[in-house]
């Protein structure tokens, strides 16, 4: 599960092109995005991705080996029963989709079977959510603030959580290249 904002697009695209094609877990992407761009964003991420990138419909079942991108102007929850639930409730940290809400609901659903990653971004969205991941025993990775285009998001995350790893984008990439799904 990856959250990011300004400066995170390229890192995410690189992760998607590095990830093993036979990945048998889902990836959740919650990226702050332009509200009015409907298909362009998912297309751009799909371009070099090794796995399908999909914006889920409300109540869509979660399948392994896919990257799910939170749709514009909706919050994306991981609902019990392994489905997505979308919401149009108010923005959190001025953001909809909110990284916090995706992370919190995923942490509650997957508990310690979750990896939460926070990348570059200009606000604090995701800090609380990553902390939840940690509290539920999941693995937490934060992009090194010094490596970020915009370090606000990473710094906010690190203020609340002692992340398992603080990685540069390159190290994050290497981590995902080698990811095996009898996983942490």
């Amino acid at each position, binding site marked *: 599960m990856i959250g990011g904002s300004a400066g995170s697009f390229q890192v995410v695209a690189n992760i998607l092109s590095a990830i093993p094609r036979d990945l048998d877990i889902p990836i959740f992407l919650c990226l702050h995005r332009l509200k009015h761009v409907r298909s362009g964003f998912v297309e751009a991420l799909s371009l070099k991705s090794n796995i399908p990138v999909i914006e889920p*419909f409300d109540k869509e079942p979660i399948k392994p080996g896919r990257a799910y991108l939170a*749709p514009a102007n909706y919050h994306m929850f991981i*609902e019990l029963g392994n489905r997505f*639930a979308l919401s149009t*409730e108010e923005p959190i940290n001025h953001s909809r989709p909110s990284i916090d809400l995706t992370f*919190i609901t995923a942490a509650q659903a997957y508990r310690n079977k979750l990896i939460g990653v926070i990348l570059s971004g200009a606000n604090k969205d995701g800090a609380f959510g990553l902390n939840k991941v940690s509290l539920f025993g999941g693995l937490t990775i934060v992009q090194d603030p010094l490596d970020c285009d915009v370090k606000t998001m990473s710094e906010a995350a690190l203020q609340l959580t002692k992340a398992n790893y603080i990685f540069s984008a390159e190290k994050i990439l290497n981590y995902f290249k080698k990811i095996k799904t009898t996983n942490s």
Partner: protein
Amino acid sequence: MDYSLDFEIGIVDFRNIIKVIKETYDYDFSDYALISLKRRFELVIQLHNIKDTDSLITKLHEDKSFFQSFLQEIAIESTEMFRDPSLWRYLRDELLPIMIKEVSKPKIWIPLCVSGDELFTLVILLKEQGWLNLVEIVTSCMNDLIIDHIKSGLFRNYKIEVSEDNYGRYQGKAKLSNYYRISNDQAIRDSSLIKNVNFVKQNINFDNSPRDIKLILCRNQLIYFTQNLHDKTLKIFSDSLIAGGYLILGVKEQTGHMGASYFRLVNEAESVYRKI
């Protein structure tokens, strides 16, 4: 306004709240999507500085007017006016002209109306096209508080900027600010626009749904129902539509497997369906 993140109620408490509401008021929320509804309960508790779930349950049980406020507060409003401007352009340029030609005074139903944003968007569209008296509009709301709120024209200030941006993308004929005024720092929409709209109080079961409807506009409300209730509601919608009637859902909603037996997709980009 981010209190919802820190405070959580447990699942047992959540179920108890639903149980008490059902027993006291015969409103059954057990088929509402869990995470969203639980968050709404958590919001109300914090909004009213209620001590804990037991206190909420007592208050709900004993204070009938609080229950009405509660109903209004747990409902989720639409996010803005002219949300998805391309949908409104499609309505203006393609679907409504066809509808007006096909049927004399087509009826448009907006169920599960909460903030009035979709309603006011529609009437502004119609007004600008000179079609206000060529259609009939009926809208359903859960209770009188919600109806009064919409009729008052109150327009949430935080929605103004995004709505104006949307209106620009919609390419409206004037300015969105032509349709509201600011009074005491509060935006109030021109309620003369909705003077001919029929407001219906409708409970959770959709008893006495409107009939002979040509178009149902119900975007991003069924997402707060479980699949089961969502499917039941689609059947109700289908029954209320005339042959060849239309249903418009939110961009990221689908009719699903059951719903596909009542509706076929006619415009994928704008989530427009037609009664089979």
